[in-house]
């Protein structure tokens, strides 16, 4: 009887699995791992006649065969168009040797024109397709088509996804951008009072090969693309992008070039930063105090005069404060002007005044945001000076 029950349980489980999953892949129909083409990056562009164009970069490793030669990494670029993203994706099947597989897609590049057109219709396919990962990285391509970037960035030795991988891994060294994945984009687009921000990259020529020729183009960090709804509203480049990182409390490291008392350049290395946003509603007026605390060390001194006395360090800290203040204020002005809350001031207000937020602040947030009095305080602490205290060539070496 017990075994009969077990058998019954087994039958129900298998039958349930076969019926309820909705998948027609079972047993011999299952897609084998060697039957798929791994798509690593996709460029999304606006095509003529209202179509969507996907440019994909695939990756494959070919072994040296029986002779045991070195394995070779290969990448192919393929194009496809369709009236919808899904159609464009499926059209790859028409000529691809293997089934294009989006499960290992890591980078989505959105062309400038597509970004201006509104990214929602381009990204919906990627959020809905069960194959895709929701933590894939999204970039906006400044000044050109995403397809062009995929083409130009993909060379025989360097692949576009490797270049983007480098940016993803090392962005924190400049604090110009921070990672924005598909999940965060979905959240921000679902949250009406927030403004979408996506890191942007551009094509540039920076690397030469050993034979002195440029092969392909480099992909460089550029800053943030700011969106109004799902349409591109503008860019925050370099320093302004870093200002946004400070405001979003995402700045991890970076270079702060300031002048010492003698006028020589001193490079401070940002070690850590901490931003606090304190909204205050008084007499119907909303004020937001932003406090940014930085810790820095001295990375470079372009002078033979020492800067390690108390007054000099204090001076450097003041310079640093001013620098960050300027960067941050520019972002705030930009945001207020465009009425786009790209640094989530609304979240801070909502958490402090949840009832009032629900009553009226949320509905009129864009108008209210443009009127907010932001009071920014930056405090720098040059805390680490390391062992070499005296600059090279200093006269009073102890």
């Amino acid at each position, binding site marked *: 009887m*017990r*075994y009969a029950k*077990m058998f019954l*349980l*087994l039958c129900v*489980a*298998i039958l349930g*699995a*076969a019926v309820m*999953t909705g998948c027609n*892949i*079972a*047993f*011999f129909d*299952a*897609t*084998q*791992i*060697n039957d*798929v083409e*791994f798509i*690593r990056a996709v460029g999304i562009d606006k095509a003529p006649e209202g179509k969507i164009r996907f440019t994909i970069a695939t*990756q*494959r*490793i*070919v*072994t040296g065969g*029986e002779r045991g030669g070195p*394995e070779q990494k290969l990448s192919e670029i393929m194009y496809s168009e369709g009236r919808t993203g899904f159609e464009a994706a499926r059209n790859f099947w028409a000529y691809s040797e293997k089934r294009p*597989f989006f*499960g*290992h897609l*890591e980078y989505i590049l959105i062309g400038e024109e597509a970004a201006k057109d509104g990214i929602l219709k381009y990204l919906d396919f990627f959020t809905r397709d069960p*194959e895709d*990962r929701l933590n894939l990285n999204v970039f906006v391509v400044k000044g050109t088509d995403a397809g062009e970037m995929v083409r130009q960035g993909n060379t025989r030795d360097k692949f576009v996804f490797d270049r983007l991988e480098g940016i993803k891994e090392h962005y924190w060294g400049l604090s110009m951008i921070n990672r924005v994945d598909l999940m965060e984009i979905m959240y921000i687009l679902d949250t009406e009072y927030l403004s979408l921000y996506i890191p942007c990259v551009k094509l540039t020529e920076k690397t030469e090969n050993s034979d002195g020729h440029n092969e392909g183009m480099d992909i460089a960090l550029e800053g943030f693309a700011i969106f109004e709804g799902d349409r591109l509203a503008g860019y925050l480049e370099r320093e302004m992008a870093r200002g946004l990182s400070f405001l979003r409390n995402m700045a991890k490291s970076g270079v702060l070039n300031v002048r010492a008392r003698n006028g020589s350049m001193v490079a401070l290395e940002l070690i850590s930063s901490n931003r606090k946003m304190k909204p205050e509603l008084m007499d119907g007026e909303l004020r937001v105090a932003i406090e940014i605390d930085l810790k820095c060390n001295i990375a470079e001194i372009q002078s033979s005069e020492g800067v390690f006395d108390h007054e000099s360090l204090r001076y450097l800290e003041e310079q640093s404060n001013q620098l960050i203040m300027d960067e941050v204020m520019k972002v705030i002005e930009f945001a207020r002007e465009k009425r786009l809350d790209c640094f989530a001031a609304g979240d801070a207000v909502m958490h402090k005044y949840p009832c009032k937020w629900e009553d009226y602040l949320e509905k009129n947030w864009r108008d209210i945001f443009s009127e907010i009095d932001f009071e920014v305080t930056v405090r720098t602490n040059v805390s680490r000076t390391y062992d070499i205290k005296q600059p090279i060539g200093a006269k009073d070496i102890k």
Partner: protein
Amino acid sequence: MLRDPGKNKPMRRSRFAEKTDTSPAPENSKASGAGSDAAAGGNSQTDAKLSDERSGTEPGLTSANVEGMFRDSSDIVIRKLNINGRKDLPVTMVFVDGVVDTKSVDDYIMKPLIQESSLGECGSTSEIIDRIAHGVIYHASMEVRRTFSECVHDIVDGSVALIFDDDKTAVTFDIKGFPERSITEPTGENVIKGAKDSFVENLRTNTASVRMKMKNPRLVIEEIKTGKQTATKIAIVYIRGLTNMRIVDELKRRLDNLETDSVLSTGIIEEAVIDHKMSPFPQVITTERPDKFCSTIVEGRVGIIIDGIPVSIVVPGTFEAFLQAPEDYSQSFIVNSIIRSLRYVLMFVTLFLPGFYISVSSFHIEMIPTDLALAITASKEGVPFLTFIEVLFMLLAFEVLVEAGLRLPKTIGQAVSVVGAVVVGQAAVDARLVSPAVVVIIAITAISSFTMPNQDFSNALRLWRFIFAIFSSIIGLYGLSIGAIILLHHLSSMEVFGVPYLSPFVGGDGKNMQDAVFRFPFSSQKKRPMSLRTTNKKRRG
């Protein structure tokens, strides 16, 4: 009557023996059945005797009847002697050649019979029997037998019988002299720090080993006999006042109910005493180490030692016991906890890895890290088979190698293993029959399975590994999950002698986790496993 030749004193009478003594009908007892059945195939006289036995009347204890019983056996020695040279005092000596120690027979039995003057003074054989019983022939293990079956049984058990036809009485002396294997190091359960002895084929040597390790007067070694043709002695070992007597009684009941011709392997006893015969998972602990055997007895379990088999059985066998190695208790508890927890991890690895690999490489490719996925793809380049086929092929190939290694002689077995693993494996990869990734997966699976301390448990995992691989090939991880649920259901519904198989993990017995996945210091293991419901619950304090 069963004796202990080591100590030369009568042992506890078994329940079975008691039945024999009280019942005149030998067919009611397996021991006499064995003795009488052993005579089957003899001449018509013997057949007539057997029919007499079946009809309830036993043949008389005479030398002629005994001779008739063993008429066709070439190893039976029958000598007619005259005590002290007196022709009016005849005696027949019967024993099995090779089983008894002939020097002892000469020195301690024949010599006094021929030379002892006090025996020559006797007027009748009954007087001689009385004198022998009172020590004229000085051997401690002596019995006076008045029934044919008892006498015959003693003879086949290795005794020398002196049959006095006039009195229809025999005096038997237990003078076993069968050459036995000496105690050697265990072959399958080696430890670095720990005892180096193991069980041997002789039951008495094994019980002596246990006694030497447990000098506890409450240690009970009961003996019963089973097997119609072999009349194999089985010792049931437990500690009175500690062990749950319900387990002991139930074990005895199951052994009594065992109807079998022979007990020449542990499997017959194991199958007779387990609750779930359809489960591949072992429900008894088997060990060849007396120290491990004793530790389980002290824990509150009941041991079984079978004559002729150098492996003991302990009941009830629970899941966690199969993941404990003898070495566990010789190491630092910190080191051992890590190793033991690793063993649990490896159990899951050996069980699930092939299925998991099939699932992720056929159904959930997106789960694999991209670089690994690309490497797997590259390794599968040119392999025409589905991953599922590859994995099953390799799993089967591994089973074939294991089987071949076991069956072949040791030296050739090693060579075959090397050839199989290295040459054939590499050739299979080169020939694009399997991908290197699958070889690695199966190798990890196989090595993980070798870390299981119990071979029976490892075998069960091997079986379930195939089931999981098949489930995974049908519906991926969902299938694997279903398989895991079925296995969990199977394990959690099992009870062995009333003890939950998964204890201490189930059954509200979470208190005894000090010796499960991790081994806590001995000082914190204050109580015996609650699930065993021992009479004496405290280990210390």
